[in-house]
């Protein structure tokens, strides 16, 4: 089977800084793939490159086997199978239009009859535990957790086969982050979606992803199957990251 996303030797610099410095990776279809690393490691730049929002200086990205083309038509076409959930979902909602307007645009892009699209939306909102009334609200009237769900609902409405989530749990309380993660788990099981999770939260990536890479300063320092990657890290930086993670169990043994 072709990989959902395949990247070969991606290079990109902003001025002097190499944001991506020879990144290569392959994301198998139907799996969850984690990209972990600290701020400035190039995680989000990589996401933007995969979405075609950022041109590479060098290297190649293939989505479902097809090379990424930078044209308006290609971007529009790509939107039907690869969808992002940005880090700050509230910021990606227009403050001046109701959620309904945002969802209607999906119908326009897909050229789907209004009634059909709204029937699908009803089912999706139900799944995400959002009240149907949410579509009549403005972004400032909903909570951060709800805004994230709205962003997921919009992405799912496009019927993507690949979903890329940038820091999906950032800014959420521990009591609600589990809810969102369970939801992502359900979605990928029931719809066979390839899920790419970009996060600095190693503990979460370790549990939801099959494979992951650790990035630092634009490079992939280590990658592979999550069990062995986190169980017996080979790279010193990966070990540092794991050691720095505040661990409740470690405190138990220490005291």
């Amino acid at each position, binding site marked *: 089977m072709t990989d959902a996303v395949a990247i070969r030797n991606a290079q990109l610099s902003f001025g002097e800084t190499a944001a991506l410095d020879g990144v290569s990776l392959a994301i198998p279809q139907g799996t969850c793939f984690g990209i972990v690393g600290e701020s400035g490691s190039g995680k989000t730049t990589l996401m933007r490159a995969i979405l075609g929002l950022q041109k590479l200086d060098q290297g190649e990205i293939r989505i479902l086997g097809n090379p990424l083309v930078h044209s308006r038509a290609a971007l529009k076409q790509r939107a039907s199978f690869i969808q992002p959930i940005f880090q700050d979902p509230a910021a990606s909602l227009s403050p001046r239009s109701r959620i309904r307007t945002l969802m209607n645009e999906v119908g326009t892009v897909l050229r789907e009859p209004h009634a059909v699209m709204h029937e699908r939306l009803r089912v999706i909102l139900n799944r995400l535990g959002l009240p149907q009334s949410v579509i009549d609200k403005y972004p400032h009237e909903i909570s951060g957790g709800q805004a994230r769900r709205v962003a997921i609902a919009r992405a799912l409405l496009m019927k993507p086969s690949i979903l890329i989530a940038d820091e999906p749990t950032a800014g959420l309380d*521990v009591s*609600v982050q*589990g809810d969102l993660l369970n939801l992502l*788990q359900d979605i990928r099981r029931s719809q066979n979606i390839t899920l790419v999770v970009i996060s600095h939260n190693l503990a979460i990536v370790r549990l939801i992803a099959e494979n992951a890479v650790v990035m630092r300063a634009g490079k992939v320092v280590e990658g592979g199957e999550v069990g062995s990657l986190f169980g017996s890290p080979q790279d010193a930086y990966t070990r540092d990251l794991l050691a720095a*993670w505040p661990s*409740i*169990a470690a405190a138990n043994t220490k005291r």
Partner: protein
Amino acid sequence: MAISLRNLSVDYSLPQGTAHALRGVSLDIQKGELLGLVGESGSGKSTVAFALMGLLANNARVTSGTATIDGKSFDLTKRNATASLRGRGMAMIFQDPMLSLNPVFTIGTQLCEVLRRRAPGSDRKTRVAMAEDALDKVKLGNPRRRMGQYPHELSGGMRQRVVIAMALLSEPALLIADEPTTALDVTVEAQIMREIIGLRDRIGCAVLLITHSLGLVTEYCDRLSVLYAGERLESGTVKEVQRQPGHPYTRMLFDCEVPIDRERHADASENRFTVIAGDLPDPRRRPPGCIFNGRCDVSFEACATVNPDDYPVGKEAQHSARCLRLLTP
């Protein structure tokens, strides 16, 4: 007893009515001790810090509360009650260090400013030397060069170190750290926490660490207090609370944490996460009975009507929680 806070209640007047952000919160911190104040968004944990520092917003009103710091009592309901302590008796580290640093002054100027208040009468040379020494103590490389730099030239972790150096110079009796590492990476977080502990060891102050991360508290704190919807539900030593949580909310919070070494299902899509179902109660209308009643998994009839007192948990004198289940298990 170095620091004690008694019966702190704070209201915010909002267009929709009066929100009771804190209701009768009490805390005790010994000298040289690190107390973790844990709570989720909306629990009022930052309001505790702001009320102590006298930094509350204009629409906030302290309706009751006294603080005892180094033997002196302060009536927090009075405006600017603790003004005399700012920069001397109390210091604060904010989540965003950029907010506590003035962008138009160099690091050196701002550190020496602290000393002008802390050590009046000292000459400039001494102050510069002391400031450089402080930067060196918080392991900020090349202190002499840093003195001439502006905040924007430093990274987030470096700025946080500067703020810690500032706190170090002011030698407070109480250091309040409000989410000091939330904006930082894990490796930097560990370093910053080590610096805060180093500062505590050096000047023997009491530290109030305000955080949403139980991981951080269990790793670094001596004691912890759990805040929920403006009320303190449990407090005790980290060890005791972790071994035997007295309040269901505390137990559920611990369950929600995702440890890095949690058992992992071979099929990653099978891994599930724990959630606390339900929502925070409306801060304008406190429901009768236990504040956590609506979301609790072990509640019974009395929980809806009786507001529980603070009951001891286990044998340890300092461990208590506000749950009726402690009376009728």
